[in-house]
């Protein structure tokens, strides 16, 4: 029986995390269908066709799906849910928003934020901010899953061409309305999928000082992140927050600057391959998880790094 992946997209471009979700789905079943629901979103479907394992791309292209509101997308998914052994999405803001509605409508449990597929019905997921890992087995006929994408490689592309199937049903609702959004535009890689992330904490002292990180990020091709303390202090927007309640990242290189290393922050980055900490407090807990620590005043160390890069 096939599995269904809900694609993450903005009607033009496929979100990078979807390739990681497909890779998790492939460990459950080799016959993978991907749903693209949106408006004028054909281009997204074409980006998915070549991913390994994807046999069918279901396209629901209608004004009703333009903003992908969960009240309507959950009902759309209900129409096709019966054909699938599992339905997966990224554990992103949109996946977290949508998937529990689908689970409730299907009267099944949701397994949130999985980091490993042990078998078609058994999964590993972090609990208590990643301080423990639970292995859970589901007895439901259809598994509703959100995937911590940093824990799965992205699936490769090949010459195969999945078929595109149009879904004609139009579901409308008047419970919720999209009013607007403001998304930060950046030339940098997505925080969730960047191979290098440089994050700043309260130690940076001001919004202006984040500029020092930007210069280094430019040279490394890195995404910029922040601790909750830096967000709470108003230095940067919440979309940059790395941690239990922000984004969970696992880049090849994570550089924590002026971050003490609260449990909540570590939950968001401790699976990074290499961790660097720069902090003037040698007792900061961040050094206990760092592969390389530099005890220094960041206002001296960062300009020096920038020059050397």
């Amino acid at each position: 029986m096939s599995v269904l992946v809900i694609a993450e997209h903005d009607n033009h471009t496929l979100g990078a995390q979807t390739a990681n979700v497909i890779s998790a789905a492939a460990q459950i079943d080799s016959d993978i269908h991907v749903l693209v629901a949106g408006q004028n979103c054909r281009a997204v479907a074409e980006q998915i066709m070549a991913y390994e394992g994807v046999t069918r791309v279901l396209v629901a292209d209608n004004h009703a799906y333009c903003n992908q509101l969960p009240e309507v997308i959950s009902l759309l998914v209900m129409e096709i849910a019966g054909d699938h052994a599992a339905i997966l999405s990224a554990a992103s803001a949109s996946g977290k928003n949508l998937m529990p509605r689908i689970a409730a409508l299907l009267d099944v449990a949701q397994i949130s934020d999985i980091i490993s597929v042990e078998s078609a019905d058994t999964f590993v997921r972090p609990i208590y901010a990643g301080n423990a890992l639970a292995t859970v087995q589901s007895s439901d006929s259809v598994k509703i899953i959100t995937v911590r994408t940093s824990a799965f490689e992205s699936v490769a592309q090949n010459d195969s061409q999945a078929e595109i199937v149009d879904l004609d049903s139009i579901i409308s609702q008047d419970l919720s309305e999209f009013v607007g959004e403001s998304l930060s535009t950046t030339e940098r890689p997505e925080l969730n999928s960047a191979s290098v992330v440089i994050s700043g904490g309260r130690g940076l002292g001001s919004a202006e000082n984040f500029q020092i990180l930007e210069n280094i990020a430019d040279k490394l091709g890195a995404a910029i992140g922040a601790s909750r303390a830096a967000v709470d202090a108003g230095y940067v927007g919440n979309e940059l927050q790395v941690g239990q309640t922000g984004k969970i990242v696992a880049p090849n290189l994570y550089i924590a600057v002026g971050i003490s290393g609260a449990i909540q922050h570590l939950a968001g980055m401790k699976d990074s391959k290499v961790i660097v900490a720069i902090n003037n407090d040698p007792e900061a807990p961040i050094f206990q998880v760092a592969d390389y620590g530099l005890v220094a005043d960041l206002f001296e160390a960062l300009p020096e790094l920038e020059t050397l890069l």
Partner: protein
Amino acid sequence: MKILVPVKRVVDANVKVRVAADQSGIDLSNVKMAMNPFCEIAVEEAVRLKEKGVADEVIAVTVGSEKCQEQLRTAMALGADRSIWVEADDDIEPLAIAKLLKALVEKESPDLVILGKQSIDGDNNQVGQMLGALCNMPQGTFAFNLKIENGRAIVSREVDGGEQVVSLSLPAIVTTDLRLNEPRYAKLPDIMKAKKKPLESLIPADLGVSVTKSLKVLNVREPEGRKAGVIVNSAEELLDKLRNEAKVIQ
């Protein structure tokens, strides 16, 4: 306007949890418990709506073992008018909680249900959305701003790339994110007063809900810890290590 605020009793956010030796779960013996931080934000938001005259009644609800009543008393000390305790095992699954809350929604007919976006124990982030689907109500999850205007809830939400605003017909579900507000502390006179506020006790059968489970926890283990690495002496040495030892930059 009536607001229902479901809250959860969890391990205090400052406690470092330990995995039980037999890997059956988390060792909760002699551990400090508290109201889930996101639920505190939900109570605060509801109480502020009442203080502004937008709402006239705030009802706190919890589902769990007898000790969860402490968190209902806390919610009432913070300003909830009354509360409802539904007795259940503490490891009840999110869908079953949502079904119990649905029955309470039918009983109480609130205009708004405000919940924490996730509890810091299970980290599931499910109940609010599930309740929305079961009640066919719209949802504004991960809210950092909430306004009631012209009989609708205008919710500003944290999303991955920034912020989104949705307008919801009432009754609606709102789940709270950190920036929504800063919860107050309960004052001693309010804690005393809360002891006299009404607390109704129910069991799932009273609500016509049968509690079932579909997930089995096979084991709970500690993640592999990271070891502290080396301390370098200069930015130059750091770059040398990253280039030649870790090989993560060019």
